[in-house]
């Protein structure tokens, strides 16, 4: 391999349609925002390199479709995620109420080893729309606390509020998931000759 290994983190973003998942990702990676809504179909992938506490990491961000009819790729998307970002729209109560279902869906599909401690981050998006606000910060926070102190951020993809900070926290949370691989690997998996099936009959001469 040509390059040294960087840590690779798989981050998936979930939430109801229209809450701004794609917008947040675009703001974070490309520093762009569009008012136009284009539903994500299937999934989008973006990557971004970041330095987190002196470690260079590549974030592989998987943005999924909020609309159920566009979710076509199933468990493959959830598998092996290092962090899951749950997004709701602070102006749409339903989207907040859905968080629970998204979280459960993730835990079922991804079935992480230690679901209690799997890192989630919750983003309450569109805080720039102050007049239409329907979910208070306190309400969101208490839900997060209840679910095991999930970090919570109030973001605006439009005005780039808290987007950087939120993703940095996401990267950090994902990094926790990385374990010390070397502990695990040893060469103790020896062949037990008594377990090897007799292969005499399979016609191979040598």
């Amino acid at each position, binding site marked *: 391999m040509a390059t040294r290994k960087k840590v690779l983190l798989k981050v998936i973003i979930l939430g109801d349609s229209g809450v701004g998942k794609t917008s947040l990702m675009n703001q974070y990676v490309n520093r762009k925002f569009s008012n136009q809504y284009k539903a994500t179909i299937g999934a989008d992938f973006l990557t*971004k390199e970041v330095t987190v506490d002196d470690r260079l990491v590549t974030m592989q961000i998987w943005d999924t479709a909020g609309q159920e009819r566009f979710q076509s790729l199933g468990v493959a998307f959830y598998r092996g995620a290092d962090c899951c970002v749950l997004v709701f729209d602070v102006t749409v109560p339903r989207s907040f109420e859905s968080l629970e279902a998204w979280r459960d869906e993730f835990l079922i599909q991804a079935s992480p080893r230690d679901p209690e401690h799997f890192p989630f981050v919750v983003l309450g998006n569109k805080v720039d729309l102050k007049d239409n606000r329907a979910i208070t910060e306190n309400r969101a926070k208490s839900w997060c606390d209840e679910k095991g102190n999930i970090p919570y951020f109030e973001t605006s993809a439009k005005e780039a509020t808290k987007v950087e900070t939120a993703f940095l926290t996401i990267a950090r949370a994902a990094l926790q998931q990385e374990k010390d*691989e070397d502990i695990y690997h040893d060469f103790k998996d020896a062949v037990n*000759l008594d377990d090897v099936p007799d292969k005499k009959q399979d016609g191979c001469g040598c």
Partner: protein
Amino acid sequence: MSSSQQEQHLADATELEELERRLTLESEGLDLDGEPGAHVDDDGEGGNGGDGELGGEDEDDNPLELSKPDVVFHMEDSFNQHDDDEDMDDDDAGENDAMTEGDRGEDARASRGNSFRAGEGEGKRSRAGSNVRRAYEELSQGRSPTVRSHASSITSRHDTEEPQRTDAALEEASWVEEDKHIIILSDAGKPIYTRHGSEDMIVTRAGVIQALISFIEENYRRPDGTHGSVPFRQQKEMTEDERDELMWFKAGEFYFVFLVRSPLYLLMVSKTGEAVKHLKQQLEYVYSQLLSITTLSHIQRAFHRWSNYDLRCHLAGMEKFTEHLIDRLQADYAFFLNAYQCLPMDPSVRDKLGALIQQHKQKEVVFALVVGNGKVMSLMRPRRFPLKPQDILLMLNVVQTPTRSFDVGETWMPLCLPHFNSSGFMHAHVTYLHEEEGIFLLLLSNKQDAFKTLSTCRNEIVSSLADSKLLAGVLRAVRAESFRVSTLKIPDLRHFVYKHIKTNQFTVPALEPPYSEPDEERRLFCLYQHVESQMHANNRPVKLFFRSSLQEAVLGWATATFELYAVFDALATKQTVTASVLALLKWIKKSETRLFMTSPQLTS
């Protein structure tokens, strides 16, 4: 070769039949088990319409299609950048929103849009599960791509953005030009290995690759009744083979071939013109190589435990073996023949060498292999554990990989032989049996702590060999040049490859003009590979293949005991070819015990 040059087919059916009849009849006298009534290549040519040039950019004349594809994927420009930013930019075009503060006025992205569309072949899959079907319909109507992927090499540090973009673009351009990519991902879509370029370049594509594979995976019910990750009730039964059949498509000049070995996905993207069958086979070898340094049980256990597991750390330091293997895939007949080469030598010397090793063998030694000139000189194994050629090739790869580590004395390395036992490591003691002539001795034990014993055992073998008359015979074999076809004096025969089915060994003479030129050598390789794929095509295997072009006439012949691939002078008549093939077989028969190791050294 210009298209005006027509191939001369010796190949209307009757002529071919006659050739075959003669070969069969006359070879019976040679006791070669040539099968009477062998199938005739009845479409007569098996050849390329128009020019018969092979390899390189050549269109394969076997239209490399699935017998009955259910699903056909078209990947549009996925691996090149023409559709750059398509989906992002029409956002931009259709709006007049001001850029936000974060924007720097300059689009520093090096992002590319990758999209794929899945089109439906025969419409047979429409009963597949609802989600996939819906997406599928959307896609097949060409509406929107389901999966997009954008790369971005923006870093958080702004000072380096400008030059980085240029580098990335250049790197990307040359990456796309490579004629054979091999990529390994975990089924979570995380990169494990890429032959070319940096992992960054596959990270963004990983999602697309994973989406393609999971699409098929989820529509597949295994013979044991389990299925892809989504339990679709109306799912069509698909066997593993059928699923594997689906796992390739062609886009432009590239073949995309997938191999699913959960929890790993392997992908080959090739414009070498090799048959899909061979590309798949090569992926199998890459997979075996990966297992040889990790073991299947480790991979399964680790990914079962952590689906986000990063396998890369175990491959560190082992890349050179993998890279060497990959480079050889396209140059060594061994891989498409699934056979290995023996060093031709006096059978009594081979026997004595085997006996000498056996004499000093300790009970810890399970396998012993002596390798000279990259070919097997001697093999010792327990009677009940025959070795598959694939495992032997992995062992040969270890000693053929240029590395200085064998120079320092003894190497002790874990090596899993996946076809023997994929769940555990063997431990290989690798040393020179004779350094100047590059003869290697590999002693394999299943005991991790057997190093000392094997080391002692090796020293005894070396000193006992040095004292014996046997050494001279062994050195003679290594120093001898490969045999040449020209010395066989067989009319019009230029070169051949002979696979001995019973032992899974093959023999091949030295390359002589015109094939000693690198380009010609490559062309000859492709030619044999092509004939092999024609003869073993799933839908219409043939036992005899013959075609002549302006450059040469090529023959392929498969019987129960051997496979022969041979090239003759372009103007050779079929009488000459018949006579020459028979003469060659006669010579091989006579030299059989010299050319092949017909009986390995067996231990109980």
